[in-house]
């Protein structure tokens, strides 16, 4: 019940116990991942055998390859970053265009279009992946049969991964940027026009600075979602695996503390991203 009503002691105790248990449930998996990245044993399992940095730095006398020397894992981190940068760029650009289209444009069928834009969020990622895979190879085969063109970027590989992730991350960027543009006070723009500013000048000096927090926020979310996507990526991946797919493969083969090391690195990276993003936000929202 709410604080203004009498709450019996047992209820207060139960609530407190529940909250603690809930938080333990949330954090236990993350804590064990972090802890076993430093265990001096070839397998991420108890008992604790002492602290080591071998799983980051490597140790040739024990035949251990650390994360920083594991070229496969490091390469997949780079692959993920490249994919995420492309997805972020495309999503923020399209999200901005869509925001203006939905908030400023007047045309028949706008309501239907705005509902259609939400569709990628309710289609399971696996199905988005296979449908894009099937459609891309249909086009590639058509180009090959009729024109004799080899369109390699339409075969499973990183360009398709970028397109697959972009197909639903664009919706999220659209929602974030539209929500901000909706609250924009248009009299500011009118004042600038009355004072003789040109359209591009108004956009650059008034609208864009106003949208900045939403643009940065949606860029951060897009990057993170792309980096962490698994379902869609798995269906479209070719020879170069992004990190999530690489880790999945290794986890099926067996456990190694190097995976804990790379996970800890990921946690640190998301924490930095989250903190910079939260600090930028005004406290009111």
């Amino acid at each position, binding site marked *: *019940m*709410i604080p203004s*009503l009498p709450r019996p002691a047992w209820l207060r105790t139960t609530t407190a116990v*529940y909250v603690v248990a*809930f*938080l333990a449930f*949330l954090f*236990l*998996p*993350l804590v*064990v*991942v972090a802890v076993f990245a430093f265990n001096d044993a070839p*397998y991420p*399992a*108890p008992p604790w055998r002492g602290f080591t940095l071998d799983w980051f730095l490597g140790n040739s006398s024990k035949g251990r390859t650390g994360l920083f020397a594991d070229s496969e894992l490091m390469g997949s981190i780079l692959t993920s970053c490249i994919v995420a940068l492309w997805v972020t760029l495309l999503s923020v*650009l*399209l999200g901005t*265009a*869509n925001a203006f*289209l939905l908030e400023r444009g007047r*045309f028949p069928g706008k309501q239907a*279009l*705005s*509902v259609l*834009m*939400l569709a*990628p969020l*309710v*289609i*399971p*990622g*696996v*199905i*988005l992946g*296979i*449908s894009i*895979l*099937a*459609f891309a190879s249909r086009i590639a085969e058509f180009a090959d049969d009729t024109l004799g063109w080899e369109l390699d970027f339409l075969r499973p590989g990183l360009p398709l991964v970028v397109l697959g992730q*972009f*197909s639903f991350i664009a919706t999220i960027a659209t*929602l974030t940027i539209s929500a901000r543009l909706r609250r924009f006070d248009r009299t500011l723009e009118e004042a600038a026009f009355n004072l003789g500013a040109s359209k591009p000048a108004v956009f650059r000096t008034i609208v864009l600075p106003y949208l900045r927090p939403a643009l940065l926020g949606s860029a951060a979310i897009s990057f993170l979602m792309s980096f*962490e996507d*698994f*379902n869609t990526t*798995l*269906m479209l991946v070719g020879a170069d695996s992004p990190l999530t797919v690489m*880790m*999945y493969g290794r*986890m*099926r083969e067996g*456990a190694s503390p190097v*995976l804990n090391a790379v*996970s800890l690195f*990921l*946690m640190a990276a*998301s*924490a930095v*991203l*989250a903190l910079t993003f939260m600090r930028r936000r005004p406290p009111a929202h």
Partner: protein
Amino acid sequence: MDSAVRARWHGRLSLGLLLAPAILWLGALVILPHVELGVLSFRERVSPHNYVASLAQYKTFFTDPLYWNVFVRTALMSVAATVLTLLLAFPIAWTIAKLSTGRAGSLLFILCLIPFWVSETVRTLGWMILLRESGVLPALLVKLGITAAPVELLYHDATILVGLIYTSLLFMVIPLISSLESLDNALIEAAYDLGAGGFAILRTIVIPHAAPGITAGCIVVFMLTLGNYLTPTLLGGKNSQWFTEQIYTQFITRFNWEQGAAFGFLLLGLSTAMVVIGLKITGQRFGDVMRRT
């Protein structure tokens, strides 16, 4: 040309420039791929490079008990995961929205948020280290004298459920908080003063008010659970029998795209049906629900 006409043409041009990328995105990456998937699912290969229209792919699904069972199992497990997530998330959402004031509330909220900034792969790795036979919890159970030897806690249905609930919690907590925050405390106080008990208040005041948030949370969680691949395959191992796995096997391993496309459409149909039913029951609009989450 007079200026009014020019202005109108200018407006049309910029509208066209804004519409083009949106149409390209939805057309080339969402609509046409699903049309292609539909076409694939309704044909059958009779000889190399020779296809005929047929319902064979769907017939396989309904006649082969293996596929049908996996499909029903995935749906039922997803319903179970959704209900359990709601039950677990509700007290926390209530605590954040109604019990904790000011900074304690936002601190608790941020603590709930943190695990979801971390990749699902990492979280699943954590559960594997905790639950596998040589893992942390079996060792703890032996130390406490509850079991004589370490037990395998991975590869059970319950393990899959734990993993799915864990991944889904945040998507339930956020819509619940936003719908509970808008509930006026005075209503609860009035009911209390008139002699209503805790359960009556919950049933007649809280749940009807929070219904939109509950629906939004349930829809999103059900969808994400149904379409999940990583958690069931890693935590369930060979026993996972999740429908997305069947789609992957047909599409990528066996290269039987026609069958995979049909399975994909069936999963999409189930997911869409649940969304529509959920919205119908509570009389909400799709756009409003999505904006909530």
